[in-house]
């Protein structure tokens, strides 16, 4: 039963990632894309967890842990980019 649950889980997660990827492509603003990327990293944490369950090997859990930690960093940097770019653009205009 667990095997089927895991496959179902995989399917759901991958669907979620796909939908987020569509948002990533569609945008329309950079902020939307950042949100999509952030969501994808969070969903990938699940992917790592599921892989650990499927392989019955906790090694994949580490993927999840690392991702939970550093995916955040990418988001922070992109958000910061978003703000600072405006600041610089405003300076360029003046």
């Amino acid at each position: 039963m667990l095997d089927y649950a895991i496959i179902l889980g995989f399917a759901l997660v991958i669907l979620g990632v796909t939908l987020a990827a569509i948002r990533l492509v569609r945008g329309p603003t950079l902020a939307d894309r950042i949100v999509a990327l952030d969501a994808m990293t969070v969903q990938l944490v699940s992917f790592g967890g599921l892989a650990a369950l499927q392989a019955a090997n906790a090694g994949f859990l580490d993927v999840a842990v690392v991702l939970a930690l550093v995916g955040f960093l990418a988001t922070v940097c992109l958000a910061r980019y978003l703000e600072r770019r405006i600041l610089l653009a405003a300076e360029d205009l003046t």
Partner: protein
Amino acid sequence: MELLLSLTIGVLVATSTYLMLDRNVLRFLFGLVLLSNAVNLVIFAAGRLTAGAPPLIDAGEYAPTGVVANALPQALVLTAIVIGFGLLAFTLALVYRTFMTLGTVNSDEMRIAEPRDGRDEDTGRLGLGRANPDKPATGQEAGI
């Protein structure tokens, strides 16, 4: 799966090559990232694919109990990823510095070392030190 993976790698290579042929050096960088991924996959696949069995030895065992994935290409890919990252980081810095100094990221405007008429010539377009002020960034553009 091998066929599909080969096709995917092919697509990655084709797209990255197209990007690397662009005159805009930033696009080259994007292509470089994709191409590195493609090559990493080549090495990874070369060791053949095994699903769901990471090359770890369980506690209490002296060797993997069943079939596990080929560890060697994984180690090679890991090394290649890291090296690729180092090269990419440097190249990014180079592109950045080049833009700040030459005022362009278009390689066809980089004609300092090999001047068009065989002489060192400063066209005046170069050396602005920062982005072209004729085309200022707008808030809307910043969103993209």
